[in-house]
Structures are given as C-alpha cells and as structure tokens.
C-alpha cells in the first residue's frame, strides 16, 4: 500500500463496490433515524411537555435546553467545516485537499441537523414558513434569531454552490467511470458544462472561499450565533464580548474532530491510506491542538473575569459553572486532549491515528456538553434572581437525549448515501497529488509514502509541527498545472 499511486479510480471505488459493512451501517443508522423520527412524532403529538423543559422564573425550570445546545453544536461543526474547506482552497493548503470535500459535506449534513433542531425546538414548527417570511423585512432589523436564520440559509446556499461547482468539474471527468444508473444524475449536474468554465469556476470558488473566511468571524460562529445569547441583558452568564471568539474556537475544534472521524472511517473502509495519509491526520491533530488551546484559553478568560470581584450575578453564574460536574469533565477532557497533542508534537512516536480519533470523539463530547451547559446555566442564573425556583433544575428527558443519537445517525446516513452517489474526495486532490510529487517544490515529499511509518515519520512529524501545510505562494501556478494535468488525465 505504501507505494500505491492514487488516481481517479480510487475515488470512484465507493460508487462501485459496496461491502456488507456499508449495508450494516446503513441498516443501523436508518433504524435509529426512524426510531427517533417516531419519537419526534410523539413530541409533535403531545407537545413539548414531554421534554424536561419548563418556564424559568416562578416556573422553576429552563426554557431552552438540550435542543438549543445541540443546535449550536451542529451549527458549530457546520461552520467550522466550511471554514476548514475554505482555508484549504484559499491558502492553497493542498495537503488537506483530500479532506476538503469531507469538510464541505459535513457542513451540509451538520447544517441540515442544525436546521432540524430548530424545528424540534419550536412549539409550532408548522408555522416556520408562514410566520417567519412575512415579517422578515422587519424582524431582521431587530431579532438575533432572524439574523441567525439568515446566515444559516446564506451559508447553506454558499456551501451548496461551492460544492456544486467543484462537483461539476469532477462529474464531467468521471462520467465514464461511474455506474450506469448514476449517469442521468451526472448528466444533469453537468448540464452546459464546458472546459472553459473551469477557470471561471476556480476563480468563483476562490472568491466564495474568501467570502466565507472573512464572514466567519463577523457573521457566523464568531458573530450571529453567539449574539443570540450575548446580547441578552436578562442572562449575565451569556453576556460578554468573549462569546464570539469562544464560539468560533469551539466550532473549529468540533469541526476538525468531525473531519478526523469521518476521514478515519473513509480511509479504513476504502483503503485510502495513500490518499488521506497519516500526514494529513498529523496535521489535523495539530490544528485540533491549536484550537483546543484557544478554547481552553478563552474559558480561562471567562472564569477569571467571572470570579474576580465581578458583579454578584456574574460571579454566581461563573461559580456555578466551574463547580458543575459536566463542566469539570469537559475541561478535563480538553486538558487530556491537549496533553496528547503536545506530547505527540514533541515526540512524534506518541502519535497514532487511533489516538487522534479517540481525542476527536472526546472533543466532540466535551463541546456538546459544554454547549448544553452554556445554554442551561445561563438561564438558571438570570439577572433577576428573586424566584425561589431559580436556579431551576434541568436534566434532559430521555426523549430529548434521543435526539442527539437520532441526529448523529441521520448525519451518518446522509454520508453513507452521498458516498454512493458522489466521490467524497475531489478529483483535484488525487490530481494535485501527482502534481505535488512531481514538482516537488514544497520540500515535503512525504505525501505518498508517509503510509510506511518508518523513519520518515520522525522527520515528517517534526516538520508538521511548524509547517501545517500552508502554502500561500504558488497557488495560482499550481492550479494552472493542475488544469494542464487534468487535460491529460481526462483523456
């Protein structure tokens, strides 16, 4: 496997071969999804009374809980995913090109789950269109939730465009290598395609990526989503300008973890060791470490500001947060993950892909629980605290918890289906790969042979610590060569 050359036939393999594991996975995720949809039906029938939510105030509960926590968690994964993919394109981080489309697909699937959570959270989901649309021109001036709907839609459109544009390129070139029943679909998405459009598309994709990178901190997880909370004068636990950076760092940590997990599974399932190389995992692990560090750092900022001579309400909420077992576990996990990442940076031998996988799963667990706790603690310690029922109690009901399993299953299901329809590694990645090696202008020739974990690992690991694959210069050239190459491969 170490010397295997990657090519288009690798990336279309999932379209042709379907193993029994795929059927098993499909069966399980479909079954879980169905069970959860039934539970959701039950909730529609009975009302939100089946949740553990209640009114805050004399009601003695919290009115937002797991659903909103999980919503921001999914949105975070989605936003982080698209930022990753945009960074790959914008900064020419070709090393990560094999996982760029995974990140994009993750964005789409995670956004879909986030959208679903909005519905699940709502008392009257049937009105989502009839109520939101007519008043939109006015609500968008005042309601952070309307801003939220706006950016989520905007990002869905941007990601889909982005994905669609790059898919056209691949679909056209791979049209002869796909199973016959997919031909009509491929013909449909390549309607009007000419080679001339490649350059234009390339440029469009670049601009889209730029737009995403610029807007991410302003509008996405660094802006609108935290504003949903941080602008509320009623809940001191949510306030503060730190929420923007905090949300963004959590989004990126979660998204990288998601990408690591999916890439790991794909690599396993389709023997893509030579495409999604160990080097890619090392790099992703380093990025994970960087953003985890940011996450923990921003937590520290909040804690110190909250407990050092802060106003009564912010001190109360911060004390409650840092003594909460869920919080302690989440931060403990982050500490363990960081310890691992530092250790492997210093001693490359510590690194292993399963360990990084483990770290990713833990990070996702930590970020999910942190999100839910953030929402709930905020509501439990309001500015006006005279109510005896405050802080109210909240522990998600079994129905609410099932939604996490349900949405993860659905997200996986979406992936399982997409794998069978489109190549989840873009053609550029396997093409660039050739190009990359041949031009050899990066002083980092370990891409293809990093599969053999011999001595190369030591030097390579050392390099990874610094060179995270950013190659800002030469992107244009590379694109040009890649295109030239394409003409050849295409034939």
């Amino acid at each position, binding site marked *: 496997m170490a010397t295997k050359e990657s090519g288009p036939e690798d990336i279309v393999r999932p379209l042709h071969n379907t193993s029994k594991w795929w059927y098993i996975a499909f069966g399980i995720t479909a079954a879980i999804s169905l069970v959860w949809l039934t539970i959701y039906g039950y909730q529609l029938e009975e*009302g939100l009374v089946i949740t553990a939510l209640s009114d*805050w105030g004399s009601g003695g509960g919290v009115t937002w809980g797991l659903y909103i926590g999980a919503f921001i968690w999914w949105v975070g994964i989605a936003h982080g995913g698209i930022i990753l993919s945009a960074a790959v394109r914008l900064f020419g981080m070709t090393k990560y090109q094999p996982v760029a489309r995974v990140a994009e697909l993750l964005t789409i699937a995670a956004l879909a789950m986030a959208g679903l959570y*909005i519905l699940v959270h*709502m008392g009257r989901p049937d009105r989502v269109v009839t109520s939101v649309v007519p008043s939109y021109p006015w609500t*968008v*001036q005042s309601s952070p*939730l309307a801003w939220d709907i706006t950016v989520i839609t905007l990002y869905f459109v941007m990601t889909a465009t982005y994905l669609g544009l790059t898919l056209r390129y691949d679909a056209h070139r791979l049209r002869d290598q796909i199973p016959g029943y997919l031909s009509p679909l491929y013909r449909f998405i390549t309607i009007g395609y000419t080679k001339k459009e490649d350059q234009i598309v390339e440029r469009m994709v670049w601009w889209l990526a730029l737009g995403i990178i610029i807007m991410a901190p302003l509008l996405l997880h660094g802006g609108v989503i935290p504003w949903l909370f941080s602008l509320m*004068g009623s809940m001191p636990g949510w306030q503060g300008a730190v929420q923007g950076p905090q949300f963004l760092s959590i989004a990126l940590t979660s998204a990288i973890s998601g990408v690591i997990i999916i890439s790991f599974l794909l690599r396993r399932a389709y023997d893509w060791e030579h495409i999604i190389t160990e080097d890619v995992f090392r790099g992703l692990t380093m990025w994970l470490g960087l953003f985890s560090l940011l996450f923990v750092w921003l937590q520290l900022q909040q804690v110190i500001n909250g407990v050092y001579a802060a106003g009564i309400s912010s001190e109360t909420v911060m004390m409650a947060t840092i003594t909460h077992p869920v919080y302690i576990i989440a931060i403990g996990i982050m500490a363990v993950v960081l310890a691992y990442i530092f250790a492997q940076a210093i001693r490359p031998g510590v690194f292993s892909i399963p360990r990084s996988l483990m770290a990713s799963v833990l990070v996702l667990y930590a970020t999910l629980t942190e999100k839910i706790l953030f929402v709930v603690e905020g509501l439990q310690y309001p500015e006006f605290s005279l109510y005896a029922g405050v802080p109210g109690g909240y522990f998600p009901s079994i129905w609410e918890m099932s939604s996490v399993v349900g949405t993860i299953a659905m997200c996986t299901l979406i992936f399982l289906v997409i794998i069978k329809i489109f190549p989840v590694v873009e053609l550029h990645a396997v093409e660039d790969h050739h190009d990359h090696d041949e031009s050899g202008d990066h002083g980092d020739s370990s891409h293809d042979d990093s599969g053999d974990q011999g001595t190369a690992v030591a030097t390579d690991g050392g390099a990874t610590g610094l060179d995270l694959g950013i190659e800002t210069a030469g992107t244009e050239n590379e694109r040009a060569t890649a295109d030239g190459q394409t003409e050849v491969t295409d034939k």
Partner: protein
Amino acid sequence: MSADDANDRQDEPRHPYETDESFHPLGKEWEEQMRDELEETDFDADLGMQMARDAQRLVAGEITEEEFYSSYHDDVEEEFDVDERPVFDDIENIDFDEATDESMLESLKDVDFENEDISRRKMMKKMGAGAAFLGYGAYATYENQNTDDAVPQDISGIRPAGEGDRDHRWGMVIDLERCDGCLACVTGCINENGTSTGANWMYVFTYEDEDTDQQNFLVRPCQHCSNAPCAKVCPVRARHTRENDGLVLTDYETCIGCRYCQVACPYGVNYFGWGEPDVPMEQIAHLEATPDEVQAMDPDERHDALRDVQDHVYDDRGRWVDSRPPQGVMGKCTMCPSRQDEHTPDHGPKGTVACMDACDEAGMSAIHFGDMDDPDSRPNRYLEHRKDVEESPGDKAERIAEEEEEDWADPPAPHHTTQLSTFKLLEDLNTQPNITYIGNEPGPEAEQVEGPVRYSSLSNDWGVEVVDNRKEHLDYGAQANRSNQEQEADD
C-alpha cells in the same frame, strides 16, 4: 434599501435640518445626485426638489399637511397630466411619520391612473424617483429613533407610538406597602384568562431581605415595557407592542414557540404552552370565526361583533392575543385587552384589569391600573396622593429631633422632594417598564420565602389546579393531569 440606510443613519450624529449649502440632511452632494437622477426622468426636477424640501419641513412640523398638499396639488396635476387627483388623495391617507420610501412606493403603486396616454410604467418611474426622494427626506429627518413605525398594518410594531400619537399608555402603580400577600389578584387573573396550572401570569413574591425579619411582597405581572426586549427579539413579531396603547401582546396565530421572548425578558413573566391548555377553547367566550375572518372584517363591524359575544380572545385589531395561549405558543399577562378594547363592558370596563378588581374586592387596593400618560388616571392620582401623605424629610427630621432632643439629630438642610420610595424593576436594563412600585425594592440578598397564602390552596372558576412551581407539575402531572387532579391537589 430603506431599513439599512436608516439604521446606519441613526448611528451618525444627527444632521442639522437644513444648512446654507443644502436642504437635504445628507448634504449637497446627495442633493445634487438626486437632482441628476430626477432630471433623467421626465419628472420636473425643480418641482421634485422643492417638494422634497417641503416634505422634510412637513415632517419637521414646520408646515402643515394642508399647506403641503395645497401648494403642490396643482403642480402635480399639471406635471402628471391627470384629471383627477388620485395621487395626493391617496397620499393624504399616508401618515408621513410612518412612511418609508418603501411604503410610499407601495402606496403610489396603488394609485390608479386613468389616463391611458401615459404608460403606467413611465408614470411609475417618474413617481418612483420623486417618491423615493420624498421618502428619503422623511426618513432622514424623522426624529423618533423608531424605524419600526414603518411597519405595515399586518405586521406588528415593537414600540408604543410617540406620546402625542398614542391613545394611552397602560400601566400600573402597585403599592407594595398595602399588599398582604392574599393572592386574590392571582386568582382574579386565572378566572379572567383561564391560564393553565402553574402559568401564574400574576405572581406574588413573599420575601425576606437583609436587616429585616418582616415579610415583604412583590406583585409581579408583566411589566409591559415600553422598550420591551421580548418584542425586539421575536423572530416573527408575534410578541409585539400595540402602538396605540403600549400593551405588549403575543399573537397566538403567529407565534412559532421558539421561546426567545421568554429568554430575553429579564423578569421571568412568560409561560409557555407546553401541552394542551387546561381550559379548552369552548369554555372561553369568543366569536365563532377563524382569525382570518375576524381580521378581514370591517373594523366597526368587528368591534360590534366582538362586543356582542363579549369576546375574550380577539382584540380590536382582530388579533388572537387574549386569554390563555394554545399549545406550543407563548403566553403572559396581557393587561386584559378585551377590557381595554371594550369588548366586555359588562364584566370589566375599559381602564380596569381583573387582578386590580380582585385586589379591590379583597379590600387591599394595592394595584392601580390606568393610563400612565393621563395625569388624572387612577395610578397617577394614587401616586400623587401617596406622595402628599408621605412625610417630607424635613418633617421626619423634626419629629426625630423632638423625640430624641439631641443636637446630633439636627436635620441636614431639608429638601422638599417627597420621601416616598418608588421604583421600577431592573430599571437600569432600560426596558422602560410601565409598572411603578411604591415601597422597598428587593435587595440583592432578598430571598423568597413561603407566603401567608399558598398557591396550591387557591381555587378558581375553572377548577384548574394552581401551583407555584410549574416544573414539578409539568414533570409529574401535566400529561395525566385531568385524571390525577385531586391526587395532585393533596400535596
């Protein structure tokens, strides 16, 4: 363009109304640009400019509407070659303060041009430029910070209209020193609105504070804030402020049940419809018509129809805002709009609310509801009266000095403001509550304690169980509440 531009403009220092350079608040350049634009159309640019200038003077109140219309009527007739005068007949119905360029354009679109010689489109173009200009001027000089006045009829606003433009500003003066915690108001509200178990729209705290062992009370309806965060955040404008009288209401037909209003309200006065309401719709007096039908009715006809059946569901605009909310929708104290709109004159006349009636009946008269704009209203008169009877600092010091006969008790220079302690809840959050309390404000260490009367001991007309902590009820009783009611009442 209007909304965003207008928002931007608010951030800038206000332009002087008119300078030597230019009449337009945006300055000379803008004015010239507008002139150029006008000149490109067939519209008489001089006339347009003059009209724009006067439109701004109109908005600023320097000339009257009559003056404005009369000076332009003939010019416009000539310019547009129309025999009738639909243009300004229609415009006369537009309240300039409420007009944006958009709504202005809308209304101009509806103008029916009889003259076939001028194509409608061409006319629109002429009118468009002129109207946009007018609208711009109106916006730029519109003093009220309130962009929201521009919302059309079928979308609700988030602020009460300005002092001169509204009929009332309903509010309360609540004398906490008269309250004895009998909870008569709580029962009165439940009887009036049929709220579900635990949804105590009217809630009375009994609390102990530092330095005193005595029991204090805080009577807490919705504060009907003039700058209501709950209305601001609602993504569908279901929660809104009735412009003509400042009532903060929820349109049960529009609410999507996102519970953002509940999160944003700092007072914890919202109660969600977690499940099926305890009091079925059939038991609540209402007009047998769908909300659409009610809204389509002619206003006078609607008023009479609603009055005939003593409707307790629709307000005078035909919105479903009164009585308990249905499942999946947010509810809270409404300040009894059916009474304020005179739909239930026999049972509760305008200017009264059920909780006040109950409090009066109980002989306490702690709640005084009325028009806070009107100096002769019950709450304002009560406040005056209380200020009068309260000892002034001078009097008090004198009395103390007499009693103690000590020099150190000599008063500081007496000032003549009253000693009466009044407050509004969390006033520094700038919600501008319309409830004024007489008495001591609960301090940061105040703690709610068991009151003289227990919520669970209350009975009401509907036979609905009353509890203090709604969460316990929702968790253990709500789904099966009908069968278990007696059992529940025991504990």
